[in-house]
């Protein structure tokens, strides 16, 4: 078997909890990521789903090295980058890009959309100066925004429009690995479908590998042949999609699948069974609609 593009081994991140007061003391730790291992091959997509607060974003931020891990290995293209300094990481910044969960704070409010998307082109001298405006306008169109948006500021956009600006920015770099943290959850369903189709095309065309973090299980299933489930800092299940959806092994996975709202079923009404996972056992409740 060929070596994967990304291999994560026993990755751990403990955030300190500090007491309040003049001299804050560390009074404990949040084990946000607790011994996580997985791998992603070039051009492949791994889905990461799980409980809110289970450590999905932190895992993504560790891989893009926005955080330094407490321990563990992050092997990208054969090299362990877990302990690298910002300087060592610099050449890698092009290869590993992230689409952020929060489209509101990840865009600099003082820069126009054109500047935000064009900046990476400038920093990495990807496109000659004269071509930049055209390239940015092309990217805007790819993600379904109007070229007229070039000179506008982030606050003038709706949530979904901002998310697409973030996607355009990540795509400018043609990365080899894209950590997409809830890339479409702020978008309406039609644009979701457009962006998912677009990301699939780009994935094929440029052989981009994805760590795709999302909570919409139908979208994850559509985009990712392999899916990992996180619960309280650990990966509790990692399986091919058909297996995960038809034969879930872990109690939390079963509770997730039982909670998916089903538009087609809900309007018809009828019984609905929901499983709640307490960490030890599964509690089943049935409601009539």
């Amino acid at each position: 078997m060929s070596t994967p593009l990304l291999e994560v081994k026993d990755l751990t991140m403990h955030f300190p909890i500090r007491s309040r007061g003049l001299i804050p003391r560390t009074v404990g730790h949040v084990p946000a990521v607790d011994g996580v291992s997985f791998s992603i091959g070039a051009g492949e997509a791994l889905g990461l789903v799980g409980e809110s607060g289970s450590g999905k974003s932190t895992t993504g931020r560790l891989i893009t090295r926005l955080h330094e891990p407490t321990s563990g290995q992050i092997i990208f293209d054969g090299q362990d980058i877990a302990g690298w300094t910002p300087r060592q990481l610099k050449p890698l910044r092009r290869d590993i890009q992230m689409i952020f969960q929060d489209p509101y704070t990840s865009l600099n409010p003082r820069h126009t959309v054109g500047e935000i998307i064009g900046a990476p082109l400038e920093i990495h001298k990807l496109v000659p100066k004269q071509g930049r405006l055209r390239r940015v306008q092309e990217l805007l169109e790819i993600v379904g925004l109007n070229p007229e948006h070039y000179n506008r500021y982030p606050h003038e956009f709706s949530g979904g429009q901002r998310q697409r600006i973030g996607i355009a920015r990540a795509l400018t770099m043609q990365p080899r690995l894209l950590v997409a943290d809830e890339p479409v959850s702020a978008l309406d369903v039609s644009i979701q479908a457009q962006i998912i189709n677009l990301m699939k095309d780009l994935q094929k065309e440029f052989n981009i590998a994805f760590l795709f973090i999302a909570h919409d299980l139908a979208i994850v299933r559509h985009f990712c042949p392999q899916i990992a489930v996180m619960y309280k800092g650990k990966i509790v299940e990692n399986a091919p999609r058909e297996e995960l959806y038809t034969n879930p092994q872990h109690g939390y996975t079963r509770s997730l699948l039982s909670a998916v709202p089903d538009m087609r079923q809900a309007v018809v009404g009828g019984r609905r069974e929901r499983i709640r996972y307490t960490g030890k056992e599964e509690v089943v409740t049935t409601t009539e609609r």
Partner: protein
Amino acid sequence: MTRPFLSVENLVVHFPTPDGVVRATDGLSYTVEPGKTLGIVGESGSGKSVSSSAILGLHRNTSAQVSGRIWLNDIDLLTLSDKEMQARRGKDVAMIFQDPLSALHPYYTIGDQVAEAYRVHNKVSKKAARDRAIEMLDRVGIPNPQLRVDDYPHQFSGGMRQRAMIAMALINDPQLLIADEPTTALDVTVQAQILDLLQDLQREFNTALIMITHDLGVIAEVADDVLVMYAGRAVEYGTTKQLLTAPAMPYTLGLIQSVPDLSSDVNEPLRPIPGNPPSLLDPPSGCAFAPRCTFKHLVADNLPDTVMPELEEIAPGHLRRCHLTEHDLSKLTPKPAEEVEVV
């Protein structure tokens, strides 16, 4: 005749910009009754947040032009002074904002901010407000609320911040709650828990709820009625069942067909509505959806491109803005993806 509890009439919100006027909301009307849930869906940028923020008086008149009427219990909220509005905001009318981070201040702890929302409208001690904040954080499912209450926003995960916002909005048991994408950052188990919580609250306090979401599954689970917005206007309005089983205009149908489910074929591309929404600076003169409509050839005389259709009632309580005839509507029944004709 008594007025509905909330009645939005002909609401207009325009933003003058150097490029021209952005018509974010253009003549929007709807009503909501106590204990009921109105779902609002629609394209990103169609004016869902902008129109709802107007109910809380959140548009500054230096940057936005707002007109129309927003009756709440026989008072037109648009005529209130800033001070009068402030007394109601967060108390009678509360909003769960779409963007938790910009609504939460980075320098104050979660607990201080949630407690403050309570103290503004209630004469209580700091301790009592803090206890109430912890209770609310617990109700929205934050683990170890006694400990996490002292965290700052950046120490919370995306979904935890969203839940902190929900705690803040619910803390004064509002009569009208506007929830703007309240569950987008939540996994489906927490989402189910939050939706249950909202419905409990609604039963207990007879709260009127406006639920803005793009998740049609959520709409199907919680909404009594649904308003579909496109380019700043209502294009369809009816009961949840009417809209999801018998959509009466192609945009609504397109939304329904964009959604994959747990049994759809993963090798087939998803089926988005082709094209992009129009610019709000220079909206099309005819039907705003016409440039993307795959059914418009059914209408004679090029009408969709030239004349904006009116909102008309096609069945009791079911309104839509479309040129297609009753006869053509039969072609709009949601079908499995492969059977849909694309022109």
